[in-house]
């Protein structure tokens, strides 16, 4: 059993049954997870959530807004929390719908603790990855922003696959100048090779096509 650090993630539990909530809290805490309990969807939406990798353990049958409707609401609000559904009497259409809408797992009560913990771990991992991706893209954006217009232009042509010579001709500058801008740009973007630069460009959503012609 691994022991993840105590504060790097949080599990949100939404269930109207107090005893189920208490049991889940104890279970998650026994494996060192931080748990936040809510008795309804409304209560969850109203509360502040820490900006940590997190996931949602959701009872399908909830008073007021049902679990599935809650899922829809979250999607509409562009909140990308991985969701694990737990239900007392799940059926196939319900689970299909939940999974289609992006649920990580659909568990029927009573469930094996390991299944739930695996699902939570998977969900947290997924959220962490997503968060890291979002985070790295943000770094790249910052780096990209630090480039001079010339450097951006040169790097654009580079990612489009043009040779230094061709770039120099296009820009009307000397090949040496191109090499200087290219070197500065590569350094600023934290890339060591052309391949790496192209990957970063793809992440930033700046395809080479813009500079192709």
């Amino acid at each position, binding site marked *: 059993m691994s022991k993840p650090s105590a504060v790097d993630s949080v599990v949100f539990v939404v269930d109207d049954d107090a*005893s189920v909530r208490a049991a889940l809290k*104890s279970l998650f805490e*026994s494996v060192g997870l931080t748990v936040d309990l809510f008795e309804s969807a409304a209560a969850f939406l109203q509360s502040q959530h820490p900006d940590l990798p997190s996931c949602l353990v959701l009872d399908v049958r909830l008073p007021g807004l049902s679990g599935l409707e809650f899922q829809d609401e979250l999607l509409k609000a562009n909140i990308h929390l991985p969701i694990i559904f737990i239900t007392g009497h799940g059926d196939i259409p319900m689970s299909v719908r939940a999974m289609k809408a992006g649920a990580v797992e659909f568990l029927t*009560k*009573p469930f094996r603790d390991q299944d739930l913990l695996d699902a939570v771990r998977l969900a947290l991992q997924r959220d962490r990855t997503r968060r890291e991706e979002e985070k790295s893209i943000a770094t790249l954006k910052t780096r990209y922003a630090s480039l001079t217009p010339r450097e951006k232009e040169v790097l654009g042509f580079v990612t489009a696959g043009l040779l230094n010579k061709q770039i120099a001709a296009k820009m009307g500058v000397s090949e040496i100048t191109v090499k200087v801008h290219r070197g500065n740009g590569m350094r600023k973007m934290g890339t060591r090779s052309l391949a790496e630069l192209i990957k970063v460009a793809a992440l930033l959503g700046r395809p080479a096509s813009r500079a192709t012609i």
Partner: protein
Amino acid sequence: MFRSLRTSTKLFIVCSTFVVSIIVATYGLVAEKEIAIEFVRKELVGTRYLQALQPVYATILTDEREATPVAKTKKGIDESLVALSTAEADTVDSLNTSESEQALTAALHKLLSGKASVIQEEHNVGALAKARNLASRIGDNSNLALDPDLDSYYLQDIVVTKMPTLLGQLGELEQSLLRASLHADAPSNYLVARPLITVRPLILDGMIRSTLEEIKRDLAAAYQGDTDGRLRKTIDAKMSSMISPTEAYLTTVTASHGEASDLVAFDRGYATAVDGAMSAWSTDEAELNRLLNRRLTNLQNKLRNSLILNGLLAGLSIALAVVTYRQIAGPLKHLRSLAQNVQATKNLDLRSAYGGRDEIGRVGVAFNAMLAELAEAHEREAAEQARTAAMQAELARVSRVTSMGEMAASIAHEINQPLAAVVTNASAGLRWLNGQPPDLDEVRSALKRIVKDGERGSNVLASIRGMLKKGTQEKTALNINESIRDVITLSQGALKNGGVSVQAELTDSLPSVLADRVQLQQVFLNLMMNAAEAMAAVSDRPRVLRVRSERHDTGIFVSVEDTGTGIDPKDMGRLFETFFTTKPEGMGMGLSICRSIIESHGGRIEVSPAEPCGSVFRVFLPIAEAGKA
């Protein structure tokens, strides 16, 4: 008024009218025939009288021809007188001829007293005149002169008028010839008068011939009406044997130019003529009698036949009425008894056997058709009922199965929740125990939660068992206000959370009701929870739950009223149906269970809109009877 009479009475009236009309017609017919018969009878009386008159003529006419002994003449006259008076006595009532008869009798008496002389001749002629007078009087008074038939009319004319005339003229001719012969014996005395004496027979000769002509004409006319020719056959020869001797006699007389030259020849001719005439007269008379009798018989036969015919008609009409009555009343009675039979036995397979082609037959056919239709409708209805019953049974079964399925699902959820909690707690406890170091506090609290969850599951099962025991409800006499207060207390927390204020308006000292306390509380709890839910969305007015109890004649009304959103009128009727729900997560069980509970207590539950908003549920429960409480 006629309509309300029985058919038999109506038919009786119709039949009686008919019979009466027949009787009236018959009476008229009989009266008419009686008149005709009376007429003929009177004629026959006349002919009988005329028969009596014949010997009188015979006496008068034979008397003067020869030197007959006075005694014989006297005897003849006496007999004639007797016959006359007898005939007159017979007919004195009907004919009224006594005057003429007396005149004749007087003339005959004169004949008796006189001798063969001129005076005697005068008496003879006078008697003949009187006799003729009597004959024509008889003819007039006895209707003979009015006879309606062709043959008998002309025959009576001969018998009544012509023959007496002829005989009288023959007698007068004989007298005049006799007188001429007397004067021939003394020509010197009567020279001057002689031509007068000889002219007289010549005049009479002409008169007799003309009378003969008239007789012939009458005969010809009578034969016209004689259809079977019998009359002609009978009297033709007689008439010829009268006419030809008479004509021969007249020829003889004419040939003598009025001179009484050959008295013997005259007398012979005269006797032959008179015999022929008398014989013809009596034959005519007999024929006339025959004709009249025949007519009388005919009339009587006709009368009898008419009477028989009318009697038959009346009998027939009565018989027809009886038959009609039988044919109307019989089948009607039959139909009525059939209808009563059908009504009594409810056997729609009965049929009327009467199927004639008359109106009643058609009624019978229509009645049968109606019965068939009824039987068919009955069958359809029975089939429909059977199908409805089967459908209801099926529906009940399905709904029972469905509600059991729903119930099972609900129960499963209720047990699953604590079970899931137990499993999760146990898993968590194990993990705490396996920790390095084991966290015994967490293990302890997990175990405590397991105990709590286990108890909770056990409670659920206990309550389910309680629900399953619903069929064997324990009814006790209970104070309904206490039950209501208990429920209010139980639900106080939930109501407060929902922001609902409770107003209890409970009437004091209500009679107790016989009911299962737990079930009744379920009902009130359900109604109050529904009311609280109905008011959850209300924010613009106070959320008030008003619970009332009040006395009614035979029971107690408990009403639960809210100020919620109210019930859609189109849902009002289905509210108590199983599985009908207006809540997204509702199962549609609550109110249907409420209703079955209340109905199993002999009460009823109903819902109506409250004023100004919300709805009110009213529960009626009958009060406990003294004996059962």
